[in-house]
């Protein structure tokens, strides 16, 4: 594997993905904030949570970049559209499988079935993260697809 390429383009792709999601909130399209959601896993402090969350997002971005690289290496081919398809699949897994599970994984997230508790009172994302706005899945898929496109376009096979 081309580790320097993974580190560089994993970093860039994660930044772009985070920026797209952030823009979706700024434009009033969604309330999904991955840094805030990840950060509140570590601290209840509203000011620090987004900072920790952002660092965690970067770390996860690198981890997934390694996974994408493994896939590209195993196919022995890489292109922007392959990366895009991988990103879309990744996005669907996150929305369909991970988000509904989050209530059980996140130490501060409430559930629609159990209500808020003193230590679990963060709004859950629900199916397709629709609780965070109807357009959330669209932006999440776009962001993940762009992440994959960037890795596919710029990763160099070892």
């Amino acid at each position, binding site marked *: 594997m081309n580790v320097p390429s993974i580190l560089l383009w994993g970093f860039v792709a994660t930044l772009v993905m985070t920026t797209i999601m952030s823009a979706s909130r700024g434009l009033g399209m969604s309330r999904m904030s991955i840094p805030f959601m990840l950060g509140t896993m570590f601290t209840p402090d509203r000011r620090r949570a987004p900072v920790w969350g952002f660092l965690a997002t970067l770390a996860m971005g690198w981890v997934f970049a390694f996974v994408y690289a493994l896939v590209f290496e195993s196919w022995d081919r890489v292109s922007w559209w392959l990366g895009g398809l991988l990103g879309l699949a990744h996005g669907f897994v996150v929305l369909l499988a991970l988000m509904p599970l989050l209530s059980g994984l996140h130490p501060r997230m409430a559930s629609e079935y159990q209500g*808020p508790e003193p230590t679990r009172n963060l709004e859950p994302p629900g199916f397709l993260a629709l609780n965070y706005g109807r357009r959330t899945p669209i932006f999440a898929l776009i962001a993940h697809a762009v992440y994959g496109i960037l890795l596919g376009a710029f990763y160099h096979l070892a």
Partner: protein
Amino acid sequence: MSSDAYPAIGDYAIIGDCRSAALISKDGGLDWLCMPRFDAPSLFAALLDRERGGHFTIRPTGGYRSERRYVGETNALETTFTSESGRIRLLDLMPVDSESNKRHELWPEHEVLRRVECMEGEVEVEVTCDPRPHYGREIPRLTRMGELGFRYEHRSEALYVRSEIPLSVREDSPGAQGVVGLQAGDRRYVSLIYTDSEPAVLPTFGDDADRKVERTLDWWREWASRCRYEGPYSDDVVRSALVLKLLAYAPSGAIVAAPTTSLPEVVGGSRNWDYRYCWLRDASMTLQALVDLGYDEEAEAFLDWMLHSTRLTWPELQILFDVHGETRLQERELDHLEGYRGSRPVRVGNAAEGQLQLDVYGEVVEAVFEFVRREGDLNRATGKILRGLGETVCRRWREPDEGIWEVRSGRRHHTHSKMMCWVALDRLLKLQESGHLAGLPVGRFRKERDAIRREVETHGYSESAGSYVSVFDGEDVDASLLLLARYGFEPPQSDRMLATCERLHQRLGHRGMMYRYLGDDGLGGKEGPFGICSYWAVDVLCRQGATDAAARSFEHLRSLSNDVGLYGEEFDAETGAPLGNFPQAFTHVGLIDAALSLAAGTGHGMGEPRRGDGHEVRDHG
């Protein structure tokens, strides 16, 4: 809609979290709330349209009488409803706590917390939460979110309603409603949570909610305890300080004039303005009042905001800004709202943004001067800004302006504006003398200052009328002339000032209150006596040594506050009831200033001279 359906303006009380504020009526109706900040579009606006505006009401289902109070020196409102079958108590607040405490648990971005408890007997209570976002333009359908409560969302905003009283949404009505029978000892919470651009944090009830209430009460008590005023009417002074604190936008330090828009100066009239902005003049006066009371943090925050917000227009000053210093506040009318008791139009934004009001320079410099006099230092950046303001005053003081009252009948040479230009240069020169400022063109500033004085004494005073006058070479008077003594331009007991005060009382005095002016202002219609002017008259009486008369006037004016000590901008000429946007910072500033002057006049001074008493700033270093 019949005007009887609207509570009187004085039937409202305010709660808030220093970012937004809600008005709640004696009937338990939360009829005004803008989120996430004072000047954002409303979520509830029954204040301006009973049918379309939206409300959030908790009250007994049958007949009742209600009484209310603030819980001690806090901004938590307690309304007691007494019916034939029992008595319930409704506590309303917007939770606040110190930032350090909030780091240990997730707090909702914005919350209104309401607690109803049955004190005696058995009472059936109804809850209606009918939000109508964006000034009532939308009729949202609340969606049940399982155990999390009801939700409404629009773009990136979400509103949750959580309740220990079972709520439901009926087919024929968009809001959530519920009725519950409470017996003595029962206690239920209802919470409204707003979030924008983030997942919501949903509060829990029970002991957690009780703790949140206690922490909020403690926070306000601690803030109120920092007031260093010790003199007559201290309860009124602290209540006024608490109101001013509610109107300070914590994230930036800006202070809004009032939390409402378009409450009319005359019921049924068209003098309806949006006051949810920061007028430099009002904020400077508010700052001075807070400094006088010992609230230095708020003073520093405002100075920071002022330096930030005026940067775009420096060395010129715009007269008003939004809470983040935005200067474009285009005025528009909301035709779909009928207005308070039919008082149309309902306006948002404010066209006064384009006016020239030269007195603002004096107000801002005076605020900084007072801050330095009490607290100490100026940094170089502030010094540069102040020098620029002085240069602007030298360049522009000869121009006509719209004046302190923002008349829309054209620019004129207002005596008060010129006097405040004199104040600006005078205070800057004093700061230079004391070493807090350097590099002022002293000779030029002194020459211009003296020229302003000559002009005011020559053209601002009418020999034929025997008093100072509103505009140069005119005959009429307005209440801003009372400030000539307050700012030390004219000794309070000089013949000119005594004669001016007498004429002001004759022309503008009305049943112990005072109009700001009576001439044509280009707006049509008439208005009531003005709150702050009435208190300025008390202030001048104190400065003239007539403390008994001042105390009587003060007593009369405090009797005109509503049942929880709040004032509007104006009084009804016949009944003294509050009119205009509510509650109004300007009037509460007047009360504080008058009380401080009374305290000084009756030997309860706080060891500091009142402004205008020939004070000097302490030498630097």
